[in-house]
């Protein structure tokens, strides 16, 4: 099996490196910085892609060059130098040699999250650590392979997108770009041209995926790429819950992340997609930090199908994404649950789009934004009911909490109805932490920071409840940590 081979090969490499005791990585393939048609061709060739995919990439690249940078967003996005980025297998930078060289602040955070030492090394990108990472995180490689075997027994396909192009070309060809076309927006277009990694999931008819799928378990993917492309297809009557990200802050050299996620549900199928995003947000003055520009969209193609997005966004210098649902099938359901926390100089512009096309389609949007320090955040959402969507129903609630007088919180919903039987409700509030609640906690001997974390967690409860259990516990801790230094 390919996976086992890889693991063996990698372990061998590790052993060898150890024997000689030097730490220069040898990368077999890498391309120079910068982006041009040759790079796109190189990526496609290295991935041994079929002709149609190369053409698709080239079309995307050609369009991308003419596309202007979007300018409607609230965050102040610095000029991005696209030529200063590695698009294929960047040569390794020198990471910290041991945990002693890692930013103590980061380690403090790990300690608070209760992350084991070995795992901390992985997350901090300590040299030598990553290859054995998966074992450390999940006890042993066998765990991952066992999972994989079990999945295969159900006929579930869970692999990297590059692998899927080879093993399931028909599925990929049919669905890739069918929800997010390459012409969708500048960042999605770039992704289409240069994507190198990401997950592919196919759940066959009538199968309920027996476990939560996570990028974690896909052992080839311990390094999440900059231009990930994820495609999840839930065939008739199937169900899958997919987890993305990690609660621990990830050290990452790449500043620009432009991922694309496409979800497709056929009749009676359901996809639950949960994200915890905690990329490096930059220092307290906003220096450094990741730009997280992601296009996520799901299409409820079948009757009675459902797509549910849950996101906890605490990291990144700039988060800019709108996980959306296109409700095509009659009686289909779209959900969006979001907690976004911005502190210090972070900026977030996030929300969702719910496009009601089929009859009796329902959508529910719960967004909780917390802004502290000098951060700025925006909820931007669209609920659109088309003329045929009789009986459509939407409920939207957006609450923002402000901590401190230097931060901002904004709400920009678009509500468009073209069907008289549709019922849409939107409500939004903005306020600060109630003095009474804070006083109550303080008078019971709870410290101020702890009290804020407690109150904020209560404020976000509706969203946190939708997270898978183990994720939820960590995410709760994360909220407290993200808000450190925001009071007093």
């Amino acid at each position: 099996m390919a996976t086992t081979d890889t693991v063996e090969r990698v372990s061998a490499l590790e052993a060898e490196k150890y024997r000689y005791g030097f730490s220069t990585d040898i990368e077999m393939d890498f391309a120079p910085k910068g982006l041009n048609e040759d790079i796109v061709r190189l990526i496609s060739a290295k991935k041994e892609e079929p002709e149609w995919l190369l053409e698709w990439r080239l079309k995307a690249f050609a369009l991308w060059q003419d596309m202007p940078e979007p300018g409607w967003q609230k965050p102040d996005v610095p000029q991005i130098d696209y030529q200063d980025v590695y698009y294929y297998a960047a040569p390794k930078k020198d990471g910290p040699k041991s945990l002693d060289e890692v930013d103590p602040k980061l380690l403090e955070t790990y300690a608070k999250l209760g992350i084991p030492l070995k795992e901390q090394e992985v997350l901090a990108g300590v040299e030598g650590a990553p290859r054995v990472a998966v074992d450390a995180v999940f006890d042993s490689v066998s765990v991952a392979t066992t999972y994989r075997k079990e999945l295969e027994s159900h006929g579930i396909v869970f692999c990297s997108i590059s692998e899927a192009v080879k093993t399931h070309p028909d599925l990929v060809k049919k669905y890739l770009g069918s929800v997010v076309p390459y012409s969708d927006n500048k960042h999605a277009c770039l992704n289409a041209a240069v994507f190198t990694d990401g997950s592919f999931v196919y759940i066959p008819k009538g199968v309920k995926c027996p476990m939560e799928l996570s990028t974690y378990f896909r052992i080839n993917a311990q390094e999440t790429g900059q231009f990930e492309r994820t495609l999840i297809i839930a065939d008739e009557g199937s169900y899958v819950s997919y987890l993305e990200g990690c609660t621990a802050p990830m050290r990452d050299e790449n500043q620009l992340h432009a991922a694309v996620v496409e979800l497709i549900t056929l009749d009676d199928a359901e996809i639950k997609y949960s994200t915890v995003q905690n990329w490096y947000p930059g220092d307290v003055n906003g220096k450094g930090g990741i730009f997280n520009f992601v296009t996520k969209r799901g299409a409820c193609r079948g009757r009675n199908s459902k797509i549910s997005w849950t996101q906890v966004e605490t990291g990144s210098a700039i988060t800019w994404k709108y996980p959306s649902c296109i409700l095509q099938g009659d009686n289909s359901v779209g959900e969006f649950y979001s907690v976004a926390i911005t502190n210090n100089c972070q900026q977030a512009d996030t929300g969702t789009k719910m496009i009601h096309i089929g009859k009796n389609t329902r959508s529910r949007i719960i967004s909780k934004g917390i802004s502290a320090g000098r951060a700025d955040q925006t909820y931007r959402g669209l609920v659109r009911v088309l003329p045929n969507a009789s009986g459509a129903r939407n409920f939207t609630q957006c609450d923002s909490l402000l901590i401190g007088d230097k931060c901002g919180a904004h709400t920009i919903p678009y509500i468009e109805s073209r069907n008289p039987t549709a019922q849409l409700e939107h409500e939004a509030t903005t306020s600060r932490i109630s003095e009474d609640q804070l006083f109550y906690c303080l008078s019971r001997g709870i410290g101020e920071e702890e009290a804020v974390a407690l109150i904020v967690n209560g404020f976000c409860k509706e969203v946190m409840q939708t997270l898978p259990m183990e994720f939820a516990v960590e995410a709760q801790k994360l909220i407290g940590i993200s808000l450190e230094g925001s009071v007093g």
Partner: protein
Amino acid sequence: MTDNLLQDLLRQRGDSGRFDPKEALPTRKAEAWKYTDLKRLEKFGWSVWLAEDSHGVTAIPDAALKIEGAINIVLVNGFLDRDLSALDHLPMGLSLEAGPASEAYGDGFTDRLSDALTQEELTLHVDAGKVIEAPIHIHHITWGADADAAIAHAARVTITLDKGAEATVVESHVTASGNGFTVPSLGVSLGENSRLGLYSALMEKAGSSQIGLADIGVSKGAVLDSFILSIGKGLARREVRLTMAGERGEAALSGAYFGTGDALIDTTTFVTHGAENATSRQFFRGVLDDRSRGVFQGKVLVREGAQGTDGQQQHKALLLSAQAEVDAKPELEIYADDVQCAHGATVGALDEDQLFYLRARGIPEAQARALLTQSFLIEAVEHIARPAIRDVFRDALAHRLEGDLV
């Protein structure tokens, strides 16, 4: 007819104002005009009404609102008509003058259009501490020589209340004959602790288009009560910019609209809280029938330092027909933490249960629908603080609904 309507108007006016030589009317690509398509303006070849033109209005048209005891001021095609206006015996402390338009407004399209087209400005001033009991009713009348006439005009009214003054102003818009493309602008300044009731009624006929602008400043302790009744049959866009510039100012900005035929009713509000402890309340209701379209874009901006702000906004709309459409964009932009801000927006149909209840009591369906629609809209009208005006507006709304729904 030309291919650039805007440039054609500017040429007639003999002044390109603050427009680029090639600039055209905004399209739906512009965020502020995302939901309001101005293409329908191209159906007519508009003639800009000039000072030397003479009209044939001899009395206030029947279609106009009748407010008992009001001081009637009449503007025909953007110019003050001294014969039709009650300019003699104005109460003490109130002054009214017409003169050349002076002030330049903001940089928005409507601002610049109003600047470019306005020829005369009506200035209304209330002295400090004076209370003007009688409502001042400003009639905006569009008159064309015949039914096909297409007249473009822009009137500007400036209202200033000095410290502690009080007044009630109604401004209404009707079409006497022909079709109008009107760009009325309203500059309002409320001095410290002054009180103003400001009520607008947009009742122009089908074929008419209005792009109006109100710029209102509320000083310390001042109280504004305002309402927009938009029941015209053409395009009616009203942009309201309200600035809470002083501590403890209070403003109510409400409205009701009803669209039939291919009416397009656009209410665009922008409330800025720039001072501490000020309150703003917005309460809008709309009903859309036939192929009509309703647009509500409401923004509340709380600037840094505007602590203690209380800003609330609500917009509810009903769709009565399968071809009707409503688009809402309520927006909050907040840079202060000690605030209470909220907005709510709903879109739906008449409540089937309520309809069933009425029908079960022998009320025919059409009437039951009319009754429910009316009560839905009247909830907004009830927000008008001046009882006399509230009654007039309620009747005008009922009359409009009767003509259409029953």
